[in-house]
Every structure is written in structure tokens, then in C-alpha cells.
């Protein structure tokens, strides 16, 4: 990260911890995760050595939470009028976009970090499959990465938080079930991207299969989001 990206990143990350919003988001995420893992995933009734009950529902949970994490990033700048302040500073669009994106990503990783006690306590009672759990967490991190990229882009399109949240939510759900691979293959000329939708790529990770093509799939989605975000900012000047 350049020094200007770091400055924007620090400011945005600090903003998350002003007030009780971060606690609320953490509590909702952990609460929903516990309910889905133990109730819908029947965690206690199955032999969960790979924490499948936990990982299975993560994309859907993150699809509800990440739009809330990212919705203020640009929307608040428009709403408060501070977009004029930030756009008149000698900072490149890339630094602004990546600074805000990394703040949202790190905050979301902290949220994911709160689920580690589940692994820790389960390891007392079960013979855990460390490889599959690590692979599942890598899948979750990549899902968070791509969702943050997409939601940052959407937040640059509206000045109303609720509109931003709903647009991000529906965009993510669309992406999760719509097979984007042929489009990404065509757009980036990458024929070796594995076929399959977002959810199929994620399921590879929770089954313990880490393949570079699936990693690339999520990274490309993130870059696409960041590119749209930068273009949306440039369009503000036109």
C-alpha cells in the first residue's frame, strides 16, 4: 500500500470503531453464524471434523453482513457532502478506492476472526481435519474479499445508505447464483478459470480442494469491483 492509501485506510478503519456500529455488526454476524451452525447445520448431531456445518452457510451470511459493512464507504461521503473535500485532495482515485476497500476487508476479517473459538473448542471434543478447516477459512477470506470489492463499487453509486445496502445485497445474491465464469474467461482471456458459479467455486474450498483457478476467480471479481468503483468516481468529475 502507498502511504496515501495507508492514510485513507487508517481513517476508514478507525471510523468503524467510533460508536457502537462495529459491536452491532459483530454481534449480528456471530449470532447468525451460531444459529445456522448449531440449528440449521445440526452441528452437535453430525461428526463435524471439518466444520462443514459452519462453512456451508457462510456465503449467505456474509452476503447479508458485508453490504452493511461497506454501505457507508462512499455513500456517507455523498450524503455528508465530504465527497467535495476528498475529491479536492491530492490523492489518486486508486489510493482512495484501495484505502477504503482494505479498511472494509480488514474489518470483515476481524469479524471472521471471531469465529475461531468455534474451532478451538471443537478441537477438545473432535479429531479436527486441520487441512479442510484451513481450506474452508481460505474460501471464506476469498468470499469476504470479493464481496468487499463488489460492495465498495455499489456504495459509490448512491447517496442513500438503504439503497446502497439493498443494491449490494441483490448484486451479491445475483453473483452467487449466476455463473460468471464464461464472462470472466472472455473479459480477461483466462481460459483456465475453472467452470462453475460462485457457490461451486466456494464449495471446492470447503471440500478441501484449493485450486489456483478458484482463487483467481475471487481475485478477478474483487478487481472488477475495484475497477468499477474507480470508474464510478471518475464519472463524478464528468
Amino acid at each position, binding site marked *: 500500500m502507498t502511504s*496515501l492509501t495507508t492514510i485513507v485506510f487508517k*481513517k476508514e478503519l478507525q471510523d468503524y470503531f467510533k460508536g457502537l456500529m462495529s459491536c452491532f455488526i459483530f454481534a449480528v454476524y456471530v449470532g447468525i453464524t451460531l444459529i445456522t451452525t448449531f440449528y440449521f447445520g445440526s452441528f452437535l448431531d453430525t461428526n463435524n471434523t471439518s466444520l462443514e456445518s459452519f462453512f456451508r452457510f457462510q456465503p449467505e451470511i456474509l452476503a447479508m453482513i458485508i453490504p452493511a459493512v461497506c454501505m457507508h464507504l462512499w455513500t456517507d461521503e455523498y450524503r455528508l*457532502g465530504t465527497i*467535495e*473535500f476528498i475529491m*479536492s*485532495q*491530492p*490523492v489518486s482515485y486508486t489510493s482512495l478506492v484501495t484505502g477504503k476497500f482494505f479498511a472494509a476487508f480488514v474489518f470483515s476479517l476481524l469479524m471472521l476472526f471471531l469465529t475461531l473459538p468455534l474451532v478451538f473448542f471443537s478441537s477438545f471434543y473432535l479429531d479436527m481435519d486441520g487441512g479442510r478447516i484451513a481450506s474452508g477459512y481460505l474460501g471464506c477470506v476469498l468470499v469476504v474479499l470479493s464481496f468487499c470489492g463488489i460492495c465498495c463499487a455499489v456504495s459509490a453509486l448512491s447517496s442513500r445508505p438503504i439503497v446502497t445496502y439493498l443494491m449490494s445485497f441483490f448484486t451479491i445474491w445475483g453473483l452467487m447464483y449466476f455463473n460468471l465464469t464464461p464472462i470472466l474467461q472472455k473479459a480477461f482471456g483466462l481460459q483456465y478459470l475453472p467452470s462453475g458459479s460462485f457457490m461451486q467455486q466456494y464449495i471446492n474450498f470447503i471440500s478441501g480442494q484449493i485450486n489456483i483457478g478458484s482463487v483467481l476467480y475471487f481475485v478477478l471479481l474483487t478487481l472488477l469491483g475495484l475497477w468499477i468503483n474507480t470508474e464510478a468516481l471518475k464519472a463524478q468529475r464528468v
Partner: protein
Amino acid sequence: MLTIKGLSKNFGSIEALSDISFKAEQGDIISILGPNGAGKTTLIRILSGILSPSKGEILFDGVEISRNRVDVLRQIGYIAENSPMYGDMNGYEFIKYSAALHQIPKPQFNTRLEVLSTGLELKDILHRRISELSKGYRHRLGIASALIHNPKVLIMDEPSEGLDPNQKHIFQKFIKDFAAKGIVLMSTHILEDVSALSSRILLINQGKLIQDTTSTRFRYQMPEHDLAAVFRNLTLRSPSKEK
């Protein structure tokens, strides 16, 4: 030196600015005057890098702003109308953030902050939350953040709107001091500021520059030497008639 050449701006089919050209040099305090909707704010936003022009060039010391946006913005301080700020920061944090974005070293930041907080009488409120501050203090905080990097050009949109007479006095004194070593461009429709501060007046109407003159010449266009009378006389006529 700031040079504006043939600047035009269209929003769809609406022509907000048409073929604006002028030059500004060190020591100039230029008021951009015009009725509501004349294109003053659009011009200010283009000059401060927020909007890009549809046509024309802005050269700062020979460097074109759209090709070197970041480099040129390092030389410019901008205060938007109503001084939008992050309400959950305190004054010190806001100025520090602005300084950090301009990559000002810490010793230089401390010196500048001392000068600005003394000159603008901000010392007592620097550690108060911005959302708790009055409009006058927010405005002065906006000036401090715009000047923290010691810019060569200060651009302001409706700078003294809503200030009480004491605050206006502090503001005007500060702007005169700054103009001794820089360029000040301000959009306003408060004629009292124009007569107290400006060395030059740019009058814009319907997106066209209809007068670029000194404030004395501007005033003496009417027998009563009244700014308001001249303003009315010029802006109630169409720009085409003026030519």
C-alpha cells in the same frame, strides 16, 4: 500563475459554462460574481479538480490540471460551500487528516497548525467534535484545513455565508494576509465581501464571462458607484447584448 483558456462545461444538453478565459497572478483576490445558477459553483468545482471541463484548459504554472491532477491539487486549497466535514472527528483530527493527505511532515504540520489556529482564533475548539461546532467555527476550521499545506491558490465557494460580523472580520483579515503571497478565488453573491476584499471581479451570467475588471472600475460603471446597482444592471441584461 493560473491560466484558464476557453473553459466550457456541459451537463447533458445544458451548457453550464461557455468559453471562460482569464488569468490570475500572485496577490490577486478575485471575486466570481453572478446570480444564482450563473455557473459560479461549476467554475469553482472545475478549478478545484472536483469536476473536469468539457472543453478548455486550466494551467497552473504551465501545468495542465487534468493531466496532472494530483500534482496541481497539492498547490490548491479548496473550501466548499457550507464547509462539509466529518462530524465525528474533532477539529484537530480533521486538519491532521487533511495535512496527511497532503503529506505534510509532522514538524511543518505543527508550525502551520500553530499559525492557523492563532490567526483564525481556533485554539479553544480544536479538540471539540465538529458536529458540536457552530457554522462560524466550522467555516474557520475549513479555512485552516485548506491552508494547512500552505497552498499557492485558495479557492472558496460562498465563503462568508452565515458568518456574524466578528467572524467576517477575522475571515477578511486572514484572506488579505494570505493574498499577499498567493491567489484567492472566491465565488460569492455577498457584495460587502466583494467591496472589502476583491482586487478583481469576474462577472458570470448564464455560463458566460461578461466582465473581467478591477473592483474600482466595476463600481464606477454606474453614476451612484454602487456595486449592487452595477450587478443588477449587468445581470438583468442578456450576455449576448453585453457583447
